[in-house]
C-alpha cells in the first residue's frame, strides 16, 4: 500500500467510525429524550431529604481511637474581592450554610466543625498559598475548602500535597489540576474538558447536521481549554465540521461587545460555543439580545447555573445552556434536597445565590457533605477518628448525595456526575427563565468526563461514543 493509499484507507475507516459514532450518539440521545427527566439514580433516591443526608451517620466497630472533643477546624478560602468575587462570595456562603446545618445536626461523629475564615485569596496564587499555609500552620487546619480561579487552584493543589492538607475547590475548571497525580485534592465540580465535551454532544443533538462552528470566549486558559475540548470532540465525531470564527474577549473588562457580535453574525456559524462568566457575560448578552444575535445564531453556553439573576433582557428566550447544576435542576419536586438547600440558603442569607453563584454555593455545600461522609466512612473502617490520609482514601469511590444530585468520586479524585443541558424558556408569572422540562438532557459522566489516567486532550481528539453500561 502506498502512502497515499494508506491515508485514503485511514480516512475511510475514520469516516466509518465517525458515522457509527454519530449513529450511536443519536440513538443514545433519542433514548435519553424518551425517558424524561432521566437518570434512574435520581428517581431511586427521590425520597431522601436534606436532613437525612446530614443526620445519617455510618457507625462502625468500637473504636480504639477516641474522637477529639475539640471542634474540627476547616479552613474556607475563596476570592471575596476582585473579579472572582461574584463566584467566591456565594460559594463561601454555601459552605458556611453546610457547616451550620451539620453542626445543628450534631456535627461529624459528634464533633463540631469550626470554620476558619472565609479568607480572601483575591484569586491570586501567592495569596492563596499564603492563606492555606497560614491555615495549616497557624490555625492547625488539615482540611481546606474553596477557591475559584485556576491559577490559585493549581498553586493550592501543589501546596496540598506539599503541606499535607485535604483540599476541595469550590470550582476550579482547569483540567491541568489533575495532570499530575494528587494525593489530597478532590474536585467535586466539573472541568473545562467535561464542559466542552458536553457542549459538543448537545450541539450534535440540537443540530445533527452541524457543518460550521465558532466560539466566543474570554481570552485565557479557561476559554481556550473549553473551546479546544468542544472543537476536538465535535470534529472527532464529525470530521467535516469547519471552524469559521474564533473570537476572544479581552480578559480585563469587556465593555463593548458589538464588534464581536457583528463578526459572529457575519460568519454565520451553525453553532457558537461559549463559556463566558461573570460580568463579561452580562455585557455580552445585554448587547447581543437587541442586536438580534440570538435570532440568527444558535448559541451554546455553559452557564445554566442559576438564572434568577436574569430576565428577558439579559437572557434570550430559548437559549441552550448546560451546567453540572442549576438552581432549579435537579427539579425541586423530584429532588427535594435541591429545594431544601435553596430554601435554607434564602432563609440564611436573605436572597438566593446570584447567577453562576448558585453553582458555587451548591459546590461548596456538596464539598462539606462529602467531607462529612468521608470522615464517617473512614472512621468506620479504621475504628475511630481518622487521619487525613485515611479520609482521603475514604473519599475514593464514594457516592455523595447532595443538591447537585448524586455524584461519585473517582479513583483519580475527579468528580463524576451527570451534566445537565437544556433549553430555557420564559413562562408567565416567573420573571427569570426556567428550564424547559421538555428539553432537558443529562449526559452521564462516562460520556463527558475523560477516564482516569487519560490525558484529556488525547481523549477528546479521539472521542468516540462509548457504550453506556
Amino acid at each position, binding site marked *: 500500500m502506498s502512502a497515499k493509499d494508506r491515508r485514503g484507507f485511514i480516512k475511510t475507516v475514520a469516516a466509518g467510525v465517525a458515522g457509527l459514532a454519530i449513529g450511536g450518539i443519536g440513538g443514545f440521545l433519542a433514548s435519553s429524550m424518551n425517558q424524561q427527566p432521566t437518570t434512574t439514580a435520581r428517581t431511586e433516591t427521590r425520597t431522601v431529604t436534606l436532613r437525612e443526608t446530614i443526620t445519617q451517620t455510618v457507625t462502625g466497630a468500637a473504636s480504639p481511637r477516641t474522637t477529639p472533643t475539640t471542634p474540627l477546624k476547616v479552613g474556607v478560602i475563596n476570592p471575596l474581592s476582585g473579579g472572582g468575587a461574584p463566584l467566591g462570595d456565594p460559594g463561601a456562603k454555601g459552605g458556611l450554610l453546610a457547616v451550620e446545618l451539620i453542626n445543628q445536626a450534631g456535627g461529624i461523629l459528634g464533633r463540631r466543625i469550626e470554620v476558619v475564615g472565609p479568607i480572601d485569596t483575591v484569586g491570586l*496564587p501567592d*495569596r492563596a498559598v*499564603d492563606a492555606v499555609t497560614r491555615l495549616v500552620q497557624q490555625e492547625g487546619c488539615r482540611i481546606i475548602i474553596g477557591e475559584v*480561579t485556576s*491559577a490559585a487552584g*493549581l*498553586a493550592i493543589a501543589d501546596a496540598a500535597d*506539599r503541606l499535607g492538607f485535604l483540599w476541595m475547590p469550590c470550582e476550579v475548571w482547569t483540567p491541568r489540576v489533575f495532570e499530575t497525580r494528587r494525593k489530597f485534592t478532590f474536585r467535586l465540580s466539573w472541568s473545562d474538558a467535561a464542559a466542552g465535551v458536553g457542549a459538543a454532544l448537545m450541539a450534535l443533538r440540537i443540530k445533527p447536521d452541524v457543518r460550521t462552528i465558532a466560539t466566543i470566549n474570554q481570552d485565557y*486558559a*479557561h476559554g481556550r481549554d473549553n473551546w479546544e475540548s468542544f472543537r476536538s470532540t465535535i470534529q472527532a465525531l464529525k470530521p467535516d465540521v469547519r471552524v469559521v470564527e474564533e473570537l476572544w474577549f479581552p480578559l480585563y473588562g469587556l465593555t463593548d461587545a458589538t464588534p464581536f457580535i457583528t463578526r459572529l453574525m457575519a460568519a454565520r456559524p451553525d453553532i457558537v460555543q461559549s463559556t463566558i462568566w461573570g460580568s463579561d457575560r452580562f455585557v455580552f448578552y445585554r448587547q447581543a439580545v437587541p442586536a438580534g444575535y440570538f435570532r440568527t445564531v444558535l448559541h451554546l453556553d455553559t452557564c445554566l447555573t442559576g438564572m434568577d439573576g436574569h430576565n428577558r433582557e439579559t437572557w434570550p428566550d430559548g437559549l441552550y445552556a448546560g451546567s453540572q447544576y442549576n438552581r432549579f435542576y435537579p427539579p425541586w419536586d423530584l429532588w427535594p434536597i435541591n429545594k431544601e438547600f435553596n430554601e435554607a440558603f434564602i432563609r440564611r442569607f436573605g436572597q438566593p445565590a446570584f447567577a453562576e453563584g448558585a453553582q458555587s454555593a451548591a459546590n461548596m455545600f456538596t464539598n462539606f457533605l462529602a467531607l462529612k461522609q468521608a470522615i464517617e466512612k473512614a472512621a468506620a473502617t479504621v475504628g475511630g477518628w481518622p487521619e487525613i490520609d485515611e479520609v482521603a482514601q475514604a473519599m475514593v469511590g464514594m457516592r455523595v448525595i447532595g443538591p447537585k444530585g448524586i455524584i461519585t468520586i473517582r479513583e483519580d479524585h475527579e468528580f463524576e456526575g451527570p451534566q445537565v443541558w437544556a433549553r430555557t424558556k420564559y413562562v408567565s408569572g416567573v420573571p427569570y427563565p426556567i428550564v424547559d422540562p421538555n428539553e432537558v438532557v443529562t449526559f452521564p459522566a462516562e460520556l463527558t468526563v475523560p477516564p482516569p489516567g487519560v490525558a484529556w486532550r488525547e481523549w477528546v481528539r479521539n472521542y468516540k461514543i462509548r457504550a453506556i453500561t
Partner: protein
Amino acid sequence: MNVPSLPRFPLVLGAVALILLLAAPFYTTSFNLTLAMKAMAFAGTSLAFNLLFGYTGLLSLGHAMFFGGGAYVTAYMVKRMGVQSLEILLPMSGIGAMILAALVGAVAVRYTKIHFLIITLGFSQMLYGLVLKFYTFTGGTDGLGPVSGLRFFGLPISLRDYSLYYFAIGVFLLITFLLWVIVRSHFGKALQAIKENTTRATYVGIPQIRYKYYAFVISGFFSGLAGTIWAIATVHVAPDSLYWILSADIIFITLLGGYAWFIGPILGSFIFVYLQNTFMSLTGYWMLPLGAIFIAILIFARGGVAMLVYKYILRARR
C-alpha cells in the same frame, strides 16, 4: 526630601535582625518562613527600585516587569526546560531581567519625572499583555508552577529542611550587600548628584543619561534576582507578578520603609507583607485598613518607618 546627615542605624540593630532572621526556623512555623521569603523578595526588588528612585530620582511604575520577569524566567526554566539547578536559575533570572532592562532602559532613561513613570508603566504592561495572552508559553492566567525539585550544586533544596529558606536569605543578603557597595561607590555618589541637581551633575562631568542607564540596568538585574526568591517562595508564578498593582506595591513598600535610608525598603517589605497577611487573615475587607495605612503613612510618617525608628532612637539617646 533632605536626609538628616547623621542617620546611620546602629549596626547592632542590623545584626540582631539578621540573627533573628537566621534563627527563625527554630522559633516559628514554616508559614512565617514563607512570608519572610516573600518579604525578602519584595525587599530585594524594592532595594533595586530604590537605587532608581531614592538615589537617582527616577520614579518607575513598571518595576514589576523585572521582578515578575525574573520570576517567570525561573518558573519557565523549571517547568518547560527542566532546569532545576538554582546556580543556573538564579543568574539566568538576573540576566533575563537585565536584558529586559537594557532594552527598556535605552528608551526610558531619556525621560524624567512623570514621563519616566508613564513609559515604564507602558513597557511593563506590554510585557504583562504578552504573558497573559501567549498562554502556550506562559500558561496565561494559570501561570507556571510548581517551581519545585530544586537543587543547588547537586544538593536538593526544599523548605522542609529549611535549605530553601537559607538559600533565599543568601540571595537576599547578596542583593543587599552588592547594592550597598554600589550605593557607596563613586557611581552611587554620582547618581545622587544627578538626583540633587541634574544640570550641575552634567557640569561636573557626569554623563547623566549613561549613568541613569547603568542604574536602570543594575536595578533590573537585582530585581530579577529577587524574582527568583519570589518564584521559589510562592512556588507558583502568575501574571500578577507583572501587573502594575505590584509596581505600586513596590512604591508603597519603599515609601513605607523610608526611601531616604538604604535599609528603608527592607523594613517596608517585612512590614507590608505581615500587615497584608494579617489583615487578610482577619477579615474579607482587608483592603480598607491597608488603604487607610497607605494614607496614614503619608500624613503622619512621611519619612517612612525608618524615620520613625530614627527619631525614636534619637529621643532615647537624649
